[in-house]
């Protein structure tokens, strides 16, 4: 077994009493002594600090990096203004999704943040398809911290004017950082990309604020689930199209008309037969990923892609895929949990309203 990679904040996690677990090759904090639910509520009510340095940061450098990237994603990258960033998808010829990512306009090119589990794949994908047109420059020495929650703006007042999905370079607590108004919790907050060598100083200064406390990957997952946000590998994969996943909003008009991204015809000419939905099981039993979804006659018709406990709702929530005839909110559906059908129904996403700062 190869040794797990430690992020620049690893020693701080151990000192904070974190329970660590291997996650796509990294030794990451699963939770801290306060516990996952307390950490989740910290992000909903105050501000939680996450080490997400395992995420892949890389740059695409070159004059036409935006046009080049558009050959691999359906998003409007050429229209991305200075200081703006956008959520988009690497698609493939069958219309499936290779990864989801965040793209920002940077001087001389683009900045990308991709999933840890897909970093190697995405880097090779970019080099194979765009190698002659842009320089693909991984940034393995950078750390990424996420400060999430309604108190985040008061902790970083110098960046409180940034709108949701905006970013700029500046000093955060005296540390040079690329600060964006973004995150993966549904809350207001920031992501801060810093040199690995500066990560401990930044984390220490953020944690010195009385509103801020560590949160681990377990809380990060329950937060994104409540917010109805997709996790690659669970809610999105190589055989799921953006329209099936409810991500049609990531395909702007110009790109739909140009039809020049991988899988465009498959995606645009085939109305989806199944859709991602939110669901609430009755009672407290948790429907976890992989559980079958059953129709009223008990036939398996879909599956749970992400499921867990919602601390805000005090009960279970799930996202999964159902035939389009069964996706209307209120539709009854059963969850096959350990061989027993458990009743539930389709509900609107997100489970907990987003609290983004729109400026």
């Amino acid at each position, binding site marked *: 077994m190869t040794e797990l990679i430690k992020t620049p904040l690893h020693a701080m996690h151990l000192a904070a009493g974190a*329970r660590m677990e291997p996650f796509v090759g990294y030794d990451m904090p*699963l*939770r801290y002594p306060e*516990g*996952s*639910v307390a950490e989740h509520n910290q992000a909903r009510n105050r501000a939680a600090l996450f080490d997400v340095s395992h995420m892949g940061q890389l740059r695409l450098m070159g004059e036409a990096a935006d046009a080049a990237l558009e050959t691999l994603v359906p998003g409007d990258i050429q229209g991305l203004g200075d200081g703006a960033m956008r959520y988009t998808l690497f698609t493939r010829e069958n219309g499936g999704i290779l990864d989801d990512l965040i793209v920002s306009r940077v001087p001389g090119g683009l900045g990308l943040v991709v999933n840890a589990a897909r970093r190697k794949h995405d880097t090779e994908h970019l080099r194979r398809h765009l190698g002659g047109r842009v320089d693909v420059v991984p940034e393995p020495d950078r750390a990424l911290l996420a400060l999430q929650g309604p108190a985040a703006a008061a902790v970083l007042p110098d960046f409180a004017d940034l709108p949701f999905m905006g970013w700029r370079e500046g000093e955060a607590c005296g540390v040079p950082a690329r600060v964006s108004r973004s995150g993966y919790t549904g809350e207001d907050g920031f992501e801060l990309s810093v040199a690995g060598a500066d990560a401990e100083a930044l984390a220490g200064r953020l944690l010195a604020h009385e509103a801020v406390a560590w949160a681990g990957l*377990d809380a990060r997952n*329950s937060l994104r689930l409540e917010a109805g946000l997709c996790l690659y590998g669970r809610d999105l994969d190589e055989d799921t199209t953006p329209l099936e996943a409810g991500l049609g909003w990531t395909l702007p008009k110009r790109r739909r008309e140009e039809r020049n991204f991988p899988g465009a015809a498959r995606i645009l000419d085939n109305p989806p037969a199944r859709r991602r939905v939110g669901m609430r099981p009755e009672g*407290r*039993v*948790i429907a*976890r990923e992989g559980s079958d979804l059953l129709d009223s006659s008990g036939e398996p018709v879909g599956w749970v892609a992400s499921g*867990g*406990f919602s601390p805000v709702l005090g009960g*279970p929530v799930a996202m999964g895929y159902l035939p389009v005839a069964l996706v209307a909110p209120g539709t009854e559906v059963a969850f096959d949990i*350990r061989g027993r059908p458990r009743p539930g129904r389709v509900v609107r996403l997100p489970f907990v309203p987003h609290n983004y700062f729109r400026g």
Partner: protein
Amino acid sequence: MAVRTYYTREHEWVRIEDGVAVCGITDYAQTQLGDVVYVELPEVGAQVARDGEAAVVESTKAASDVYAPLTGTIVAVNERLEESPDLVNEAAEDAGWFFRMELDDEGELDELMDEEGYQAFVEELD
């Protein structure tokens, strides 16, 4: 005489109270699991076999099987866990008990660990 608590290698505890065995998961187990958000308990009247599946405990992270520490019949379950599964975190070896069972053979108790033995067992795991 102090009430004796017995322990299994699967991190369950057993205490004999009023002639029946009270069973739950250990404090060590709950710290390993993290926040408990759901407990699926057996039916009263169910026959359970030693080391057979008897309950499921779900943390925020995952579902884990809980095994019957001994062979016998379930005579009561802790209904408070339905609304307050967090009792397992707060008081795993007391108010967070899972079920009570009538034992087929009290002699099986002799094969379980005592508190000292369990502490030594857990220390080796860490």
